[in-house]
């Protein structure tokens, strides 16, 4: 018995050890069988002949192979399917360097790996190379080659897919000038309706990733390139309409840059759209996100992003639109109000970095209006910190300021004896009021004080000739002007002495009295 064990032990050891190439093996018919996960060993006796290895795969999975470099040999490693269609070709190093295929997507069947040399002067017939293979389940893994939109790998929205920025060059592409390798994934939105797609790409050393989203027509919908080298990318609240298929393209920003040691994680999430967040892309009027609830959240990303929100007013009645925008760390946000054609009605840029902006009130009637949120410099982006944009529609009534009233053409009518409450906001605001004097007499104009504004009151006749003016001594002080006036129309301009002064919190009250 001992003798038997002694005799069989070398055979057992051989069975567990590497698989040695069997020459001749320079065609697929002569390929040396290699179990998935096993190691093949060979020598480049004739450096011009490729070595074919046959891998019989029994289940779906991902196959990786690492070919250890040897002296004098400039290895090229390729993978083929059963029909000898070349799937991937790796030539990342020069003489003596390792080559490796990572996460080749395989299904049950025959695959081939070929080991060849491209150094014509190679002469190393005796040193052994090792071809180490690894077979793993494909769940949650990238399945190469997915280097084109046509071969995009379907992934479930709501999971993590691990992949590699490797190889750094696609040697099988038709265009010899083409550089870099794209990793394409497809997300199938099967249900009907509006959804928000979130995508996160983890950081990988040496790689500066770019993420792009395409529709099935091949139109690029968005490019995400906020992070730098060694940083990740994140796409938040990207609006998609189902049922439809969307393609994600992930690549390294710089050619011939990759990483075979650290994988990337691609995390996707698909959420039903409930109107609480922006619906990207909403960068233009036609794509504006409907602002139907009282508030909505959004982010400024990528740099230069502007978020359009549509407010549709169905009633004929006059209303005052008030809007508030919260601050975002490190950013100076600007809020603009636009009309149905996208023309500017008002730009609110009262406060500085990280401070809220307030649209104190703008007169609106039936129709569509747009609120647009942007970052002042156009160079900053942050998809982790969101802003909240809230709106209120208040029925207009006599005694409330009706913006726009910042010119003689849009002057607000006021009856003698009445008062009106308004704001010195946004920055640079001036408010015009007009009243008629039907009987000659003494008229008194009273303006209450407002913190942070030292207002100036100017009286004009009906031909807009200045008659008199009065100013507050200091911010917060009231202003009064008394004048004998003939029958006629008169205008009053109210404005802070310094256009930078404004107050979005406190209203002034202005009154015209005839004595």
């Amino acid at each position, binding site marked *: 018995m001992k003798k038997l064990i002694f005799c069989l032990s070398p055979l057992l050891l051989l069975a567990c050890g590497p698989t040695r190439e069997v020459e001749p093996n320079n065609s697929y018919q002569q390929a040396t069988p290699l179990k998935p996960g096993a190691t093949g060993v060979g020598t480049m006796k004739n450096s011009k002949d490729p070595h074919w290895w046959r891998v019989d795969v029994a289940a779906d999975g991902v196959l990786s192979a690492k070919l250890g470099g040897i002296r004098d040999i400039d290895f090229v490693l390729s993978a083929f399917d059963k029909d000898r269609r070349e799937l991937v070709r790796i030539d990342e190093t020069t003489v003596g360097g390792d080559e490796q295929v990572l996460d080749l997507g395989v299904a049950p069947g025959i695959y081939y790996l070929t080991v060849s040399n491209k150094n014509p002067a190679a002469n190393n017939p005796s040193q052994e190379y090792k071809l180490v293979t690894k077979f793993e389940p494909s769940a949650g893994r990238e399945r190469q080659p997915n280097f084109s939109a046509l071969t995009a790998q379907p992934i479930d929205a709501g999971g993590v897919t691990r992949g590699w920025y490797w190889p750094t060059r696609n040697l099988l592409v038709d265009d010899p000038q083409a550089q870099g390798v794209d990793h394409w994934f497809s997300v199938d939105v099967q249900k009907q309706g509006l959804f928000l797609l979130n995508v996160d790409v983890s950081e990988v050393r040496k790689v500066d990733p770019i993420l792009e989203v395409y529709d099935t027509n091949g139109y690029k919908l968005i490019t995400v390139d906020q992070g730098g080298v060694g940083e990740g990318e994140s796409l938040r609240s990207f609006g998609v309409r189902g049922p439809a298929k969307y393609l994600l393209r992930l690549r390294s920003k710089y050619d011939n840059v990759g990483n075979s040691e650290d994988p990337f994680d691609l995390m996707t999430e698909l959420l039903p759209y409930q109107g609480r967040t922006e619906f990207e892309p909403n960068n233009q009027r036609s794509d504006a996100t409907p602002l139907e609830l009282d508030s909505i959240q959004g982010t400024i990303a990528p740099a230069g992003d502007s978020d359009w929100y549509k407010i549709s007013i169905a009633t*004929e009645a*006059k209303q005052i639109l008030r809007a508030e925008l919260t601050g975002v760390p490190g950013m100076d946000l600007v809020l603009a109000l636009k009309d*149905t*054609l996208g023309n500017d009605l008002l730009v609110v840029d009262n406060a500085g970095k990280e401070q809220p902006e307030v649209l104190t009130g703008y*007169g609106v*009637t*039936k*129709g569509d209006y747009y609120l647009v949120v942007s970052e002042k410099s156009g160079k900053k982006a942050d998809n982790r910190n969101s802003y909240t944009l809230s709106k209120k529609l208040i029925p207009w009534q006599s005694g409330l300021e009706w913006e726009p009233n910042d010119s*003689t*053409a*849009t*002057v607000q*009518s006021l009856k003698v004896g009445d008062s009106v409450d308004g704001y010195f906001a946004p920055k640079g605001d001036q408010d015009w009021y*007009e009243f*008629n004097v*039907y009987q000659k007499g003494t008229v008194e104009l009273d303006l209450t004080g407002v913190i942070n504004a030292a207002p100036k009151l100017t009286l004009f006749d*009906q*031909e807009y000739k200045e008659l008199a003016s009065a100013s507050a001594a200091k911010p917060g002080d009231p202003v009064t002007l008394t004048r004998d006036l*003939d*029958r*006629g*129309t008169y205008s009053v301009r109210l404005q802070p002495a310094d256009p930078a002064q404004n107050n979005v919190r406190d209203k002034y009250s202005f009154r015209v009295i005839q004595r």
Partner: protein
Amino acid sequence: MRSLSFAALVLLGACAAPRPADVTGPVPPPRRVEPAPAEVKDPNFILIVSESVPNPDDDGISFTKVFADGKEVGKTAVGRKAEERTLRLKLPVGNQPIRLEQWVLPGVGEWSRLADSLQPRERFARVEDGSIVRLELRFAEGEASNTLTVSREAAAR
């Protein structure tokens, strides 16, 4: 013979039945065509009315009445809202309150006066010899807002 008398009754009944026009209700009176305002020689007051109508489907019919010191002194021609209409008047010299009143013809129904809150504001205009007061009224957002500007120009000699 019985069936013959039944047929005669049916025929009589058919003659007595209301005509289709009676069934559909009263016929609306023919629409009165508004005469174009007469040309005024040496006007001292010009009103120009226009409206921004972004969508041609929303264009309608309107005209504007002019009141000076509480009395109606003229009205523009009836026309499409998007068309600019001009009214030239010779008003008495003096400073007088001018009120404009906008009337619109809805798709269905009669002429209606725009709600008070949407009407242009009343303002004084000083009418003088040798000059023309020019009032420009421009509506927007389907008459929901308007701007009224006043200017003066020298009268042609």
